[in-house]
């Protein structure tokens, strides 16, 4: 990405509280034209509330949000389209009637939903009431409603939730095609699998962006990944005292590569199938590190981990 890439959204100091719950504690975020930005975080991190604020659905308590060279979210509404998980489709209408309803209300509604529902294998279900849909079918309908509007900026809130693996791959292809067509796409997710299509990832934790950068740069900042099979190392041996089970193995983050020897000493390797080694970090490790482990996380602009590789 060159330095001349335009900004389509800038948010500064966005804070939002619901009753006693401070959901967003001061988010700064910039979205660049033509990128796929993955907004990641655990359940309850504030991803949906943040996208709601960015799109004008929820009014932040404080902060400034500008889209497309100075437009407020309200004024910019004809220029973006948002998928909101479980908050769009009317259960009493059929899938087709829902598509017709939303398409008719937007000035840039198109018939591209026909191709989308075909690719998402929803075509044969469109005449059934949405009340009879499974969660995955409803997600597909929401995706088709959102992406059939021809706008430069899309927000997809947890689009892969409840989709099977084949459909997740299909959706990834659709998102990449949109990016190739010059669109900007913001995706929220807590599924590491989704990070594979990201050109930039921003991690949201406790209502703040704690890390923001290109995936390769974020990977470089992840400490050595410990992989143990056949035994469980003491939690005190890893960063943040946090271990993660993945299949038949346990993973964690070492303070440095020298720590591997100490873990080996602590784990009984005399057993037949005990394995203790350093592994390459996966997207799941990346997610776990920035979401649960990274101790010195600070919001962007306040000593946050801001990982760039010179490309931004």
């Amino acid at each position, binding site marked *: 990405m060159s330095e001349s890439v335009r900004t389509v959204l800038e948010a500064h100091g966005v804070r939002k509280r619901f009753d006693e719950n401070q959901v967003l504690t001061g988010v700064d975020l910039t979205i660049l034209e033509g990128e796929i930005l993955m907004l990641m975080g655990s359940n309850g991190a504030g991803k949906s509330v943040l996208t709601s604020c960015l799109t*004008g*659905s929820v009014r932040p308590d404080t902060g400034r949000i500008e889209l497309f060279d100075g437009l407020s979210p309200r*004024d910019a509404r004809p220029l973006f389209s*948002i998928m*909101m998980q479980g908050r769009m489709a009317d259960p009493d*209408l059929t899938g087709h009637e829902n598509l017709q*309803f939303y398409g008719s209300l937007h000035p840039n509604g198109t018939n591209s939903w026909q191709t989308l529902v075909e690719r998402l294998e929803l075509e044969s279900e469109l005449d059934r009431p949405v009340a009879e849909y499974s969660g995955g079918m409803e997600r597909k309908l929401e995706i088709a409603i959102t992406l059939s509007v021809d706008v430069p900026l899309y927000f997809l809130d947890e689009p892969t939730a409840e989709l099977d693996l084949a459909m997740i791959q299909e959706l990834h292809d659709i998102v990449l095609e949109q990016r190739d067509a*010059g669109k900007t796409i913001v995706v929220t997710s807590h599924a590491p699998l989704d990070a594979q299509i990201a050109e930039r990832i921003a991690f949201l934790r406790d209502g703040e962006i704690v890390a923001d950068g290109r995936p390769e740069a974020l990977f470089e900042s992840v400490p050595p990944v410990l992989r143990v099979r056949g035994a469980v190392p003491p939690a005190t041996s890893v960063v943040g005292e946090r271990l993660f089970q993945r299949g038949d193995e346990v993973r964690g983050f070492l303070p440095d590569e020298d720590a591997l020897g100490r873990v080996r000493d602590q784990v009984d390797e005399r057993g037949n199938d005990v394995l203790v080694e350093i592994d390459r970090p996966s997207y799941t490790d990346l997610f776990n590190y920035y979401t649960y482990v990274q101790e010195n996380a600070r919001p962007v602009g306040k000593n946050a981990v801001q990982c760039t590789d010179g490309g931004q």
Partner: protein
Amino acid sequence: MEYTLPNRVPWTRQTTTFTRRHLQQLSRSKMIVFLAVVWPVLWYFLTMEFFIDVPADADVGPIKAANGMNYGLFGAFTVTVAVFAGEFARDLDGERYRKFRTMPVSPSADLVGRFLAGFLLGVGSYLMTIGVAYAHGGSFGGLGVQTVAVIALTLALFCLIAMALAMGLAIVITKPEHMTTIAVVAVLMAFFVTGYNGTAPSLIAQNAEMVNYLPNSLATRMQIAVWAGAENVEFMTPPEAPVSASYAGILAGYAAVLSATSFAIIKQFGYGGVRR
């Protein structure tokens, strides 16, 4: 890439989109079909058979016509309340307004679209009951321009009252599944408290004059007096039959206030994001 703000979808198209959505929803609701078709006709026949005592030598034609109008309006009122209360509460409860707020949609198009759907259903229900009363021997007056205007005004006002009442209920009661029942109970209460929507003011112990000022009873009494003929409505006097322009002015005032109230509710709680 240059970004140009597209023109919004015209207001009228937004309105018809909302109207179509609600008619599609309602066409699948057995409860709404029951309230629109069976409910007022049932009450009409119950009243004619059991609730009123007609002397043997009396001309029952105007009484049947009056009851047809009364229950026609009652049915329109019931169905509009049920439509509005249920659908608006469901959209609030389902958080669909979170999506609507991100779209270039006019709140007034949403409101008017909903109203037209309820009104169309209400008119259908009204005409059905009038037709039944006519077939049962009800004698209605002629349909001059003034009579048609009064019928349209009073029917529209009834639906406006229903809309405002329903939207008020929807923001107070957060369980949409109970809304239809609560709405019907509210309609029945209004019906009985005002002496069958003002057609039997003798049932009201004190201040029976209020039936010429409360919106539901005033609208009913005005329509009956104009269409059945003021000389044929002794059964609902005193107070006097409200046929003067000043009463029409009161109805117009109610229409303005109730429309403004409904718009304020949808703007605040729907598009303003104010939580219930």
